[in-house]
């Protein structure tokens, strides 16, 4: 009632924008443990839940709840995730501040996302297998290794740095080659993709793919095959179907 000096600490936590005519999964609870509801505006709807945490979030349970709500929305139709942390005062603000000003954009976005889901793909290395590969493949690495191994840790530091540098460079090249090869198979199965992290010894591939639901099985099969071929050398990981977090831009 009095002029609010402090930020509003109750409101609606917003998860995503969806089509207004869809059903929400029943019994879904949000970051605060409260039920999830839809605030409609024309064809659009914002998925929200009551939020009264004193304006603080970011706890592990909140992140998990946000992600769970999003994943539960995926099977029921196009979902445009809103970045974690958006709290709006009330229903009317959801419409006037979020949905109405971007109605056209959000509608086209949902239309584009229709029938598609995101998969996160990662290929990481089995370190010892790669190191052995590099020692066998690069005489200079093998030689430096022979020269430095067994030395106490503070002896031959220059040579050890050199060895590590050669290993690192060679591994980076290997990662670029592996990434190119794996993505050459995966990318054609997707309508869009983003490389989340450039190829490195930590991971050859860390990417998000936007995939039509009908092609999901094809993607899984391809990943299975590649995982089998790579066994002992790389580990392949497939997360999804996820909401298309990486494909909604900053509308």
């Amino acid at each position, binding site marked *: 009632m009095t002029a609010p000096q402090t930020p*509003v600490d109750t409101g609606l*936590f917003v998860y*995503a924008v969806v089509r207004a005519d869809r059903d929400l999964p029943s019994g879904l609870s949000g970051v605060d443990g409260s039920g999830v509801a839809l605030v409609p505006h024309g064809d659009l709807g914002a998925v929200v839940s009551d939020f009264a945490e004193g*304006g*603080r*979030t*970011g*706890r*592990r349970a909140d*992140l*998990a709840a*946000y*992600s769970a709500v999003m994943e539960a929305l995926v099977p029921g139709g196009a979902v*445009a*995730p*809103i*970045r*974690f*942390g*958006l*709290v*709006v005062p009330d229903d009317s603000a959801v419409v006037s*501040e979020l949905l109405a000003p971007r109605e056209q954009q959000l509608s086209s976005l949902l239309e584009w996302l229709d029938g598609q889901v995101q998969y*996160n793909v990662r290929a990481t290395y089995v*370190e*010892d297998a790669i190191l*052995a590969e*590099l*020692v066998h493949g690069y005489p200079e690495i093998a030689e430096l*290794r*022979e020269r*430095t*191994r*067994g*030395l*106490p*840790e*503070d*002896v031959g*530091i220059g040579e*050890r*740095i050199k*060895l*590590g*540098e050669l*290993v*690192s460079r060679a*591994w980076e090249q290997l990662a670029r080659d592996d990434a190119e090869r794996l993505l050459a198979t995966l990318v054609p199965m997707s309508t869009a993709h983003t490389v989340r992290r450039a190829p490195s*010894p930590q991971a050859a591939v860390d990417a998000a793919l936007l995939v039509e639901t009908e092609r999901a099985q094809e993607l*899984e099969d391809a*990943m*299975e*095959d590649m*995982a*089998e071929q790579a*066994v002992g050398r790389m580990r*392949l*990981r497939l*997360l999804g179907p996820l909401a298309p*977090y990486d494909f909604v831009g900053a509308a």
Partner: protein
Amino acid sequence: MTVQAQRRGSGYLDRPAPSSLADVVEIILDKGIVIDAYIRVSLVGIELLTVDARIVIASVDTYLRFAEATNRLDLLERGGGRELPDFIHDMQQSGATGKVSGAVKGAKKALSSGSGDDDEEEERPRRARKSSSSSRRRSS
């Protein structure tokens, strides 16, 4: 990273349900539509997680780790694990080691802004090995 995987198909592909905190953070961090005007909740927790996830270790330290791992490898043609005498070292080189790890620690500290003494935990596997110089501590 080692979440229990639901094996399917060939069984070689890791298909975890995205339930671990690390997975969730990785999936949602910095993603989704941004509506700046209304970000009102404190994202302190998130920022801390971001820092953790993005700690960059100086390249020299990475190189040393690679060298260490390469030398630890058990290859078929390996020449045997003779131990060199403890006393072969020179102070200058050990001085360099101290500086390197000091710089890395400095960088780490700057990144993890004020999270106190996290001291080296994981990026020093070599500690497990018998130390050649018990009397000398890194940078006193």
